[in-house]
Structures are given as structure tokens and as C-alpha cells.
């Protein structure tokens, strides 16, 4: 199944894309998504452990399964304010 992943800030710069498509097979977790992103965008690999993944506007942990149609985003620790 294909997932769209929105990319922000330094993550977007490294992937050089606002949004990327990641193909994952079967039921999969955030950890699977991280692995696929790192493989597809090697520039993300060195910082992947620091990047955050959000699913439907909530922070997601690595063991969480990803539902089809979920809105996924990948970005660094926040620095607003």
C-alpha cells in the first residue's frame, strides 16, 4: 500500500520534497515507515532517530500500526514560540 508522508522543515529539505510516497506491504508500523523512508531518502537516514512521525495530528510511537488513509507527517523536533 502507498502512504503519502508530508515533510517539514529540515526533513523536507533533506528529502527535497514537501510530500513523499512510501510503499509498504501488508500491515505495518511506524518503525517500518521509518525504515522505508531511510531507504528511499538516504539523506534522512543519519537524522531519522531524531525525526518525529505524526499520524492524524498526533505524535506516533514506533510500535504503532498505520491505518490506511491515515494522514502521516515527518518532521524534526519543534522550535516554535
Amino acid at each position, binding site marked *: 500500500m502507498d502512504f503519502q508522508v*508530508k515533510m*517539514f*522543515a*529540515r526533513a523536507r*529539505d533533506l528529502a527535497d520534497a514537501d510530500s513523499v510516497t512510501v510503499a509498504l506491504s501488508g500491515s505495518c508500523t511506524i518503525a517500518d515507515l521509518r525504515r522505508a523512508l531511510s531507504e528511499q531518502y538516504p539523506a534522512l537516514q543519519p*537524522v531519522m532517530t*531524531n525525526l518525529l512521525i*505524526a499520524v492524524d*495530528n498526533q*505524535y506516533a510511537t514506533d510500535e504503532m500500526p498505520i491505518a490506511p488513509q491515515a*494522514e502521516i*507527517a515527518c*518532521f*524534526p*523536533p*519543534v*522550535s*516554535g*514560540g
Partner: protein
Amino acid sequence: MKNYTEFNDRIELTDALIDYTQLTEAIRTHQAGAIILFLGTVREMTQGRQTLCLDYEAYPEMALAKMRELAGETRNQWPVEKLGIIHRLGHLELGEISVAVAVSCPHRKHAFEAGQYLIDRLKEVVPIWKKENWSDGTTAWVHPGSGSPIPLQKGGT
């Protein structure tokens, strides 16, 4: 947890200059004896380095959702009459206001606590990022908790 929307809290992202007077007037009420307004402004010096200007970027849908969550968390912990959070996005010059948080409560202790909670949590969980434009020509995304800012590019190279 109470649903924040019933209170008409003012939660905004904006590309325009933040009008903190309008925000403050919006949270005044006869039920409050205390109002706290916090403004974050673009500071020139950070650990000896000089900032020229900043750029702020957000994941807007999630940023607004998280700001609403923070409003709800705050109302669950303190007797807040009204509150508002406005975050600026885009290009900011020195001294400009990046964020405004305003809270009114019956008593001042609660207003101070609620205001500090809102801005502390905003900086932890709301997906907004700041890019520093340093006076030495470098730019860098600021990523707290992942060490010092990582230079992205050298101006003119």
C-alpha cells in the same frame, strides 16, 4: 477533557503582524481580575551569535489541533475565563512578535500559571519550526533536543 471549542478560544496562525492589543481586548471580561499577555519577540543575540532575521514554518493543521489541545489542557487545570494563542509564520525581522499568548482568570496566580503552561507546552508540542538567519551569512533550522542548530547552507555558496 472539556472540548475547547465551547469557549471560543482564539487560536490562530498568521502571516501578518500580530495585533496583541486586539487579542488582549478580546480576552477582557468583568469576571477576570487578572490578564497575562506573553509575547515572544525576535531576539538579536543568542549565545554570542547575532540573528539577522527568522523564518517560521508550520504544519498548519496539526499546529492548530495541538494549540486547541493546549487550550483544553489549560482550562482543565486552571479557572480560565478567556484565552488566545496566535503564532506568526513566514519571515520575521528583529524585534517582531513571533507568538502571543493571552489568558484572563479571576486571580493573578492562576493567570501566570496558565500563561506559562501555554507557552511552555507550545514550545514542546506544536509543530512549528524556526530557521535562524545568522549575521555570518549561514542559516540553520533550530531543533531543540537534537544538539546545536545544524547549518544548512552558506550564503552565496
